[in-house]
């Protein structure tokens, strides 16, 4: 019950602000968006940080550190979209930044000549060119993670119009679906793993939401490459990794590779991991239960059910050392999970909430 009470508080605190956030027009002032992925936002949708959370150091806008030597596997996608509303029709508006580690551009791909010039951390007057809003792109160039702020100020009379507080991502979440579950927009409501991933994204995390086929049985592949890049060049040190069915097997494979090659990667900790009915993923045709706890995971959440003919006897199972202690939760022992099959166990709200709550308590943003 305590878990649900905690979640209810979180929902009251944040949920209202998150609701319908994309349906409203940008307010007069500053609006920041959640991080991009590749050329735009896919597999997420363009998500505005709610007005009420713009200065929240955890739930507010997050920004990847753009460190030297970064591979940027998905292309230049570390800039945060910022919409500046023309607060007062005839006012002169400027941006003020907390320090030189924030760079602001007029183009998302940092075209030559499109950087805003700051003098003593104040920009020149913003040129709206007659429009009501101006889109800018913010980048964090310093490697050390810290909080940064960006303010919109009106001159004559002097007034602070709006302010954003950016957290530099120190955590990274990886969400891996089951076989044939592919991240898509809009999300399939029956892809429980991806629903958790989207909620974490909306709550201020940097999230890799991926097809589990992007993790090979050796743990190698695009997901591994991106995680290592984040650790080595973006100041990321805390990981949360979870998956359903074969995505659970891939969670093991990814953690195993990260742990095996730790000496060459850098400093990081797998703070939280999770399986939902984990099935080993040595291949697309592997049907063995994933019963091994992910190597070096500090906290492993496990949910499983028992297979029947209805799900071809596919199931996960008890994973020693996981929570709920000692081996995880057999959902069929709880009233809401009775009769669960492999193909629905990832969709229970109780399962999703458990993963989200445990991960949020352990993985920094």
């Amino acid at each position, binding site marked *: 019950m305590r878990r649900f009470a905690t979640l209810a508080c979180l929902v009251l605190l944040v949920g209202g602000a998150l609701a319908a956030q994309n349906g409203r027009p940008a307010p007069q002032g500053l609006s920041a968006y959640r991080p991009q992925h590749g050329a735009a936002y896919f597999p997420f949708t363009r998500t505005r940080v709610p007005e009420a959370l713009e200065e929240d150091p955890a739930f507010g806008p997050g920004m990847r550190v753009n460190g030297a030597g970064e591979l940027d596997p998905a292309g230049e996608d570390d800039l945060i979209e910022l919409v500046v509303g023309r607060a007062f029709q005839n006012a002169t508006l400027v941006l003020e930044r907390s320090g030189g580690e924030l760079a602001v551009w007029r183009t998302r791909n940092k075209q030559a000549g499109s950087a805003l010039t700051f003098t003593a951390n104040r920009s020149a007057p913003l040129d709206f060119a007659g429009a009501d809003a101006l889109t800018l792109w913010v980048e964090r160039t310093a490697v050390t993670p810290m909080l940064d702020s960006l303010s919109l100020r009106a001159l004559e009379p002097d007034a602070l119009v709006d302010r954003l507080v950016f957290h530099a991502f120190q955590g990274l979440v990886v969400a891996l679906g089951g076989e044939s579950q*592919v991240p898509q927009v809009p999300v399939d409501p029956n892809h429980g793993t991806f629903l958790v991933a989207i909620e974490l994204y909306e709550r201020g995390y940097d999230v890799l939401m991926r097809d589990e086929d992007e993790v090979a049985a050796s743990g190698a592949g695009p997901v591994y490459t991106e995680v290592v890049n984040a650790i080595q060049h973006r100041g990321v040190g805390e990981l949360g990794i979870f998956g359903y069915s074969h995505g659970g097997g891939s969670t093991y494979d990814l953690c195993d590779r990260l742990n095996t090659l730790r000496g060459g*990667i850098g400093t990081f900790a797998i703070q939280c991991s999770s399986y939902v009915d984990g099935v080993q993923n040595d291949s697309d045709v592997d049907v063995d239960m994933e019963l091994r706890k992910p190597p070096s995971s500090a906290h492993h959440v496990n949910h499983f059910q028992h297979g029947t003919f209805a799900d071809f006897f596919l199931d996960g199972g008890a994973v020693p050392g996981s929570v709920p202690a000692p081996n995880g939760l057999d959902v069929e022992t709880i009233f809401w999970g009775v009769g669960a099959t492999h193909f629905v166990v990832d969709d229970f709200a109780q399962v999703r909430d458990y993963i989200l709550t445990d991960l949020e308590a352990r993985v920094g943003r």
Partner: protein
Amino acid sequence: MIATRIAALLLLTGIASAQKVAPEKLPAADATLQAGLQRLLDAPSAAEQRQAFEFLRANAGAAHARLVPQLFRLAQLATDTREAMLEGVVLAELQVPADDVIHALVPLFDGADAALRAALGGVLSEYEERSGEHGADFSVYRALLAAGPSDGFVRYLLETDPGAGFLALTRAVHWDPADPRELRALLWAEHAVADALWKRSHGFVSADQLARATPEAVTQLGVLARHPRWWARLYALQVAADEAGLRSALPLELLAHDENAQVRELAASLRSAR
């Protein structure tokens, strides 16, 4: 899933995944077996499920040669987890031997594009013992390799695990027992490259220092890039594709005009990525 398959009704604006195999590249549908698989998916009771399994067993063909490609087809066209997992369920239930799966699928590498190679590898990795620590084990293909593999299969082995693939191909050659010079040269080259990659992956050498810190690997890659065996040249390219720090060791212009199409294609892609 809990609700009906709403996703099928939604207008999808985009999908991100590993590449999908074009349907025309898949084995042609066998109506009898596809109907049998559908019957298995739809079975409303354990008894009818059992009958559906028996139907598939009876119609699997010699060494399951008829069934395995149909399972692969079904999995590639799957629209949900239930369909996608069926391939593994049937292979396990009918206890289909690894050799049957391998002999049914490996011919599909002939002329396969990257998406089909990846999809076939998604099945075959079950038998390859891929490990983050020790790499892949391709010994299950020993007989196939000794008989002369297709170019597409060789490319698959090398892109899956260049070192393990190279050694598997080396062992498959019928060497002259009286003259081990070429064999030893190939083994030494692989050893030098593997040593460099090990140092790199465990943090003893950084990416930008790799070529300078491992000159023997650079030398050996250069030798392999000009080796008369095409798969040795392809191996050198694949290593460079995976590890950009070693790319300068290769004569990409020369290899882009190689007599072998696989070598030409990979060299051209590396050249354009420079």
